[in-house]
């Protein structure tokens, strides 16, 4: 399929409050970094923003191929920026393959910036074009800046004596300079950043700054400025305080560390490398926080088992992985449920089954999270809805795991892990402390005696005098914990394990309804779909449709309140990136007439697609 310009003509997709820029090139072109810099420039202006890095599973796929294209999209603006944008206003394409893969997502009239040196016969052929797309009118209706960025970069850095290869590495900075000019930004912040990162005297710092300035000065020097409409990033004023950009992975790492600190526990993240979950382990390793450590296990099973060992010994065990790894951990998670110890399991979901699409997002592990173990093995399933929400959810997971002595699974996904948004750095001294009280010094101690309100057993650390006891995966007597094959005892223990999880509802009773409390339509989503659903809901609210939105953050146990809430709306629509897993779950008891909107493209929903589908459902009438 040849890359033709966007077929989208709907005015819906043009909003006047936001700008979306996509940087695309080979995996090694530095597009993620360039995108990150523009994100920061937008952020310091106080803009709302959302980013979406998209990269192939291969680390360095062959240069110039369509499957090696990596991209980074950033959307910023004054209004609600909950999603990273359906379409790009500006596309930077460092080679023909990058153009081919991304051109369909540029809005009509959008701007394309191209390194013309890569549009030679070889590059064009490698991308799978039959002819040069710059010459065949295929870019009609779009603005184009096509210039020999490679040559201009080499010229700019010539004085530093870099070889051709190192010189060309500065191409992304040249491009960033041009983009900064487009948004009427100076280069000072980026220069500071380069000097801090690589050292002021470093020859590479100097070369990168020279390339940056050359790109920034290019429009003035070439009178390009007369043809291209410059944009201004307006300054807006969000909540006062210190801000930073945060990805879901960083936010989870901070949330875990904060939750552990507030519980006065040491935390160990035991994991095995897997895409896209590894960044959580990398961040925690990198931070070297007091009382926080990581353990890189020999495999996924050992990662989960060692995390349980950590909790058994009185630390907080956490294991994080993605679909294939979670499958391997299932047996050990069952043991943690059976022996009733706290454990946090993070699943950064990716498209499956099997190896699937390792770098692409999906929400298809919901059923696995709720039911994916042998035996009756209930646990708590939470799902953060945005990068910053990951911070809250990680703490909530820790509180629940400790209070109820249970494993808690956090369902993140590939999008959330890597996506970023501005974050008001919280004052963690204001977060309430709730130190764990371990069991000790009791006469007639019974390891499986329970708290009557939470049904949780006590947490007893080995090393505690007089509390020596044995636990294991065999069924236990409901009080002594000794092996019991008694039929009635097994029934009782099964009920207790279920009831304990049901009681968690008390702690997660914060269903937020955005929009009218009764009306035409209630959209129910969960996890990372919050952004596009929110924007679609706001958009339709303006069209006098009485539409409301709930983004569930606790998927198990499901709130009993939901049943009454859904009764207030004509249409219940469940939106998720899978084949309808939450839909089926809700249809069973809570919303028998619900409708399902699903997508399994490996990419987040587009607001536009949701709008159309919501409108169609609304037309079905009352």
């Amino acid at each position, binding site marked *: 399929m040849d890359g033709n310009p966007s077929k989208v003509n709907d005015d819906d997709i043009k909003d006047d409050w936001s700008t979306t820029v996509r940087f695309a090139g080979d995996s090694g072109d530095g597009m993620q970094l360039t995108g990150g810099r523009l994100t920061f420039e937008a*952020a*310091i202006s*106080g803009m709302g923003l959302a980013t979406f890095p998209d990269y192939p599973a291969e680390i360095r796929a062959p240069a110039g191929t369509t499957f090696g294209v990596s991209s980074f999209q950033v959307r910023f603006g004054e209004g609600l920026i909950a999603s990273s944008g359906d379409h790009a206003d500006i596309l930077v394409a460092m080679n023909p393959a990058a153009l081919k893969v991304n051109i369909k997502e540029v809005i009509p009239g959008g701007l394309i910036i191209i390194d013309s040196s890569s549009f030679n016969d070889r590059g064009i052929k490698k991308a799978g074009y039959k002819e040069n797309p710059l010459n065949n009118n295929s870019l009609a209706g779009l603005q184009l800046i096509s210039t020999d960025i490679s040559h201009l970069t080499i010229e700019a850095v010539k004085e530093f004596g870099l070889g051709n290869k190192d010189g060309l590495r500065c191409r992304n900075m040249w491009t960033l300079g041009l983009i900064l000019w487009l948004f009427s930004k100076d280069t000072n912040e980026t220069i500071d*950043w380069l000097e801090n990162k690589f050292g002021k005297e470093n020859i590479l710092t100097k070369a990168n700054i020279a390339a940056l300035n050359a790109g920034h000065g290019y429009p003035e020097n070439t009178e390009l400025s007369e043809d291209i409409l410059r944009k201004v990033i307006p300054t807006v*004023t*969000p*909540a006062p*305080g*210190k*801000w*930073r*950009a945060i990805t879901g992975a960083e936010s989870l790492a*901070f949330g875990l560390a*904060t939750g552990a600190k507030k519980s006065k526990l*040491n935390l*160990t993240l035991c994991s095995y490398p897997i895409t896209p979950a590894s960044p959580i382990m990398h961040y925690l390793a990198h*931070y*070297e*926080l*007091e009382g926080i*450590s990581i*353990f890189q*296990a*020999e495999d996924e*099973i*050992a990662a989960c*088992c*060692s995390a*349980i*060992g*950590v*909790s*058994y*010994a*009185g*630390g907080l065990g956490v294991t994080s992985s993605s679909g294939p790894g979670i499958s391997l951990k299932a047996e*050990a998670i069952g*043991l943690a449920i059976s*022996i009733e110890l706290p454990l946090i399991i993070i699943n950064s979901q990716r498209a499956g089954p099997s190896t699937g699409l390792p770098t692409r997002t999906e929400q298809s592990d919901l059923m696995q999270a709720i039911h994916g173990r042998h035996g009756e093995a209930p646990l708590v399933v939470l799902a953060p809805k945005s990068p910053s929400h990951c911070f809250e959810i990680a703490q909530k997971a820790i509180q629940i795991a400790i209070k109820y002595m249970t494993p808690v699974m956090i369902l993140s996904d590939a999008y959330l892990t890597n996506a970023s948004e501005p974050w008001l*750095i*919280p*004052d*963690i001294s204001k977060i309430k402390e709730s130190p764990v009280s371990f069991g000790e010094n009791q*006469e*007639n*101690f019974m390891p499986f005696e329970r708290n009557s309100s939470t049904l949780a057993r006590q947490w007893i*650390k*080995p*090393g505690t005098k*007089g*509390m*020596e*006891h*044995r*636990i*294991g*995966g*065999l069924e236990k007597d409901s009080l002594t914990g*000794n*092996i019991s094959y008694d039929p009635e005892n097994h029934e009782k223990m099964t009920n207790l394990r279920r009831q304990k999880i049901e009681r968690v509802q008390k702690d997660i009773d914060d269903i937020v309804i955005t929009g009218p409390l009764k009306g035409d339509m209630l959209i129910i989503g969960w996890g990372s779909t919050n952004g596009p659903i929110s924007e679609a809901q706001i958009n339709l609210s303006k069209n006098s449709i009485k539409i409301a939105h709930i983004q569930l953050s606790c998927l198990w146990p499901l709130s009993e309140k939901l049943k009454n809430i859904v009764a207030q709306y004509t249409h219940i629509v469940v939106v998720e990136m899978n084949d309808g897993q939450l839909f089926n779950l809700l249809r069973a008891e809570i919303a028998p007439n619900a409708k399902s909107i699903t997508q399994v493209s490996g990419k987040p929903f587009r607001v536009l697609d949701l709008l159309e589908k919501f409108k169609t459902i609304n037309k079905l009438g009352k």
Partner: protein
Amino acid sequence: MSINEKPSQLKPADYASDQEVRWCPGCGDYAILNAVKKTLADNQSDTKNTVFVSGIGCASRLPYYMATYGFHTIHGRAPAFATGIKITNPELDVWIITGDGDSLSIGGNHFIHVLRRNLNCQILLFNNEIYGLTKGQASPASRIGTVSPTTLRGSIEAPLSACELALSSGATFIARGVDTAIKQLVPTLREAQKHIGASLVEIYQNCIVYNDDVFKSFTDKSVAIEKQIHLEDGKPMLFGQDNLKGLAINKNYSALEIMDLDKNPNNINRVLIHDTKNKTIAYLLSQMNQSTMPVALGIIYCIEKPTLDSNYTAKLNSHKNNISKIMEKGQTWTI
């Protein structure tokens, strides 16, 4: 359950829990359980700081019978649980109880990595060369020709040697014992417990139901003295009636051979002095063919190396960063 103050001197019986032992009558596990309790009493181990962690199998039921902390986990994974426990609380004295199926088959990966990392713990591998709890299938330690429900005409697979595997995994303490020689097993276990690092003790254990007498060729009273060599560090490798046999390295330097000191007393000059730090000899001792050579028992290999738990604790103690500071590190902006 003991909740009272401990008397100053603990006896082996003080380490027994109130649970009835459920192994088959005549099982070798009973003798090993007694040896473990005796060892703890000999070293006056504190029950509150002792944790027995096991996988799945007959041997893995042992923690239920101890008056210490006990954790009966899942098949093959005890070393992974033990690792989490030790990096969280290095003060605990952790014993991993496992079998040949548990450690050499389903848990093979964890077995090699716990040794590689040199976690400070004891690993007691009850080797009965069969799957007992699942009713007698051949295990990776079963000899070629072993007849079982899954190998009706005899096993066609070569067995795995736990000690050789442990040596190549980087183990720092390797020993062997037999359920019929408790007198020698207890001192071995005592040293294993004292060793700072992962101590593997492979214990040949008779399964009276599914693999009875598999070790008879060297455990039977009539042959034991000629077919077992009990190694002692710094002493010549002598065995047999009146210590009239010794082990020497052969002329190709490829294996050990038996020296007859009765016929030729001068052979004593070629008999090796056991050096527990010599890894090459440790391999040769582990590899001896049971049909022609004695079985090496006692401490085969022992060296000092940093442990995972001490390195881990040092690393964790070096972590001084404060969450708020790290959150504000990098690029921020103030509004």
